[in-house]
């Protein structure tokens, strides 16, 4: 190797970062020195190998830009603010983020039952009338993998990165909840709100509380924005209908 060509220069040459005169000097040295040429070729191959490293990586679900009539980023930003406020409130009220008694969360057993039987689940399309959830869930990296319509409730099961699971139950309200209510502990996260005459209940285990609060606030805003949506009503009515008495 010519003593005047340093490793720094050779690397910069490979990266195309040298001024023209200096690059010409390095190129001449490479042409005259086979070992230097071999070193430059090796750096080129390393650069190419790293450059293609992300080409075959499976890309995680990517948030889609807000579409016509859907959840605008500004609204999502408002949800962040709301989530932050709720988190502050939860954090500021002593005892408001307790270890939640299981008996106070009747849906938790259903959520746990789903977790116990959740194997490798493939992504499902959101059912008609529930598309309003898509921007929030997509932006949060949550994919619908379970959908179950029962006589009393509809259960949406979402899967996120690091195997986190989140349940959203939609049912007829048993009591009126004026606004978004959340109880967040490290172990269990729970949110509850009403919209359009239906009760929404969100449950997760071991999910980052900030992320959970953001998703809850986003969904609550989304459900409010669509409470007059005929599609949503039809979907909820279908899930809430009871079998005919014989």
């Amino acid at each position: 190797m010519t003593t005047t060509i340093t490793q720094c220069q050779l690397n910069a040459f490979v990266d195309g970062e040298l001024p023209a005169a200096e690059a010409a000097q390095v190129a001449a040295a490479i042409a005259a020195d086979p070992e230097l040429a071999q070193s430059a070729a090796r750096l080129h191959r390393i650069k190419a190998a790293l450059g293609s490293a992300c080409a075959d990586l499976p890309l995680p679900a990517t948030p889609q830009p807000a579409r016509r009539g859907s959840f605008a980023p500004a609204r999502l930003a408002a949800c962040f603010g709301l989530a932050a406020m709720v988190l502050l409130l939860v954090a500021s009220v002593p005892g408001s983020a307790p270890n939640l008694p299981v008996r106070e969360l009747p849906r938790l057993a259903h959520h746990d039952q789903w977790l116990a039987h959740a194997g490798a689940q493939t992504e499902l399309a959101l059912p008609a009338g529930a598309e309003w959830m898509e921007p929030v869930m997509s932006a949060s990296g949550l994919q619908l993998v379970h959908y179950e319509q029962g006589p009393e409730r509809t259960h949406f099961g979402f899967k996120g990165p690091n195997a986190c699971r989140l349940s959203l139950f939609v049912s007829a309200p048993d009591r009126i909840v004026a606004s978004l209510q959340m109880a967040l502990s490290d172990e269990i996260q729970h949110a509850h709100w009403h919209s359009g005459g239906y009760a929404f209940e969100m449950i997760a285990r071991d999910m980052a509380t900030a992320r959970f609060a953001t998703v809850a606030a986003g969904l609550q805003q989304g459900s409010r924005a669509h409470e007059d949506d005929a599609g949503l009503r039809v979907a909820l009515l279908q899930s809430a209908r009871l079998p005919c008495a014989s």
Partner: protein
Amino acid sequence: MLDQTQQALLMQTRRKLFGYACALCEDIGAAEDLYQDTMLRVMTARMMPEESTACRLWLFRIMRNLWIDRLRAEGRLPDFDDNAEVEELAQGQGDDQVVNALAVRQAFGKLSKAHREILALVDICGFSYAEAAEMLDVAPGTIMSRVSRARAALVVKMQDEKNVIALPLRRSARRLGERG
């Protein structure tokens, strides 16, 4: 609010963003989380730089800041200027290695965070030295020496990796070898 140009740029950049996340994080799950959090932050940003280079830098800077916040929360902030002595490669050293993508990627995963980051910015994300310098808030000359040290460290890791079986880069190359 993202306009159409910005949305297009975001879509074009997302693979490199995820590559950068993979380079920064210890495992793929953490990288997915970092990527999602970055996208979420971008989608909810009130303003986004209009000029494409500035916008690209802004995107990666968001990811890097989120990554630093996480490390700080976990109390394991790395030394970003990795000045660890890397033996200067002697002339011709390592040239007998078959440089293939698998070996390079395996060795890359064993580098320090600082070395991974600088190579990710320049080789994976395609930033120029000047752009990387702006992003890391250092002089371009610093980037030049960091890249050199990181690649030297990568070659050393490749030499240390005894268990890597060098695979031919292309099947056709292997077939040609068999015929010969």
